[in-house]
């Protein structure tokens, strides 16, 4: 089995778990989603401490309304 087929199989296994366990899938899912954003937040804080950190964040997220984000001023 190639890695693509293995990935599709994994997607199908998880989708079947969600379908068959409508009250229990959410806890693990929430931990997964929150972990992505928590990691992102940690990286943003680290970038802000680097030279020109604010400019990097502004460019990364294509922020035009800089005045609206007091922490970027």
């Amino acid at each position, binding site marked *: 089995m190639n890695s693509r087929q293995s990935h599709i199989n994994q997607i199908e296994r998880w989708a079947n778990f969600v379908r068959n366990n409508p*009250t229990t899938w959410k806890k693990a899912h*929430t931990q997964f*989603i929150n972990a992505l954003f928590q990691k992102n*937040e940690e990286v943003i804080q680290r970038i802000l401490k680097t030279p020109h950190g604010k400019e990097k964040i502004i460019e990364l997220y294509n922020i035009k*309304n800089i005045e609206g984000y007091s922490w970027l001023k």
Partner: protein
Amino acid sequence: MIVIREISDRNILDQFCEEFCAIVERHCQYIIVSGFLAIASGRTRGTEDIDMIIERINLEQWKIIFNELDKRGFICMQTSSFEEAYDYLKDNTSIRFTRKDKPLPEMEIKFAKDILDKYQLDNRLKIKLTGLDVWFSSVNVNIAFKEELLKSQKDLEDARHLRIVFNEDLNEEEIKKIKLMIKRFRL
């Protein structure tokens, strides 16, 4: 199917989406489309933005929404002017909002632009499995868009996930009909 879920189950995307939608809901019709439906239905992948389509409203209505979003801690990434933001929407260009203290997640908003968007708004629904008090475009519509128009690996995987999770609720005739509409109006 009744899904009993604790508030603490809400993840960061869920909370962001519900708070944002509750504000928009008071002033116009909206739908959440595309990737967030798959994610809110259990797909385990990341996203930076949630896509929202709203009915075409006038400048005065938009001003009320824009100001209320501002009051509730949301900021437009492109501009602090509601008029300029409205110009983007009128030109069928999306505008993006985040919380004022974070660059992520984003809500990306567009005006409904054609008969397909109108169809989605007219057939919007709340989806119990998600546990969210949010209007979505239907699962059938989302599958049709992902399989017929978007077609990236990520989109096809989203469609596969939706097909399995909502298997009993799918309407293949409607999916076919929407794919034909996509061919006619978007391709």
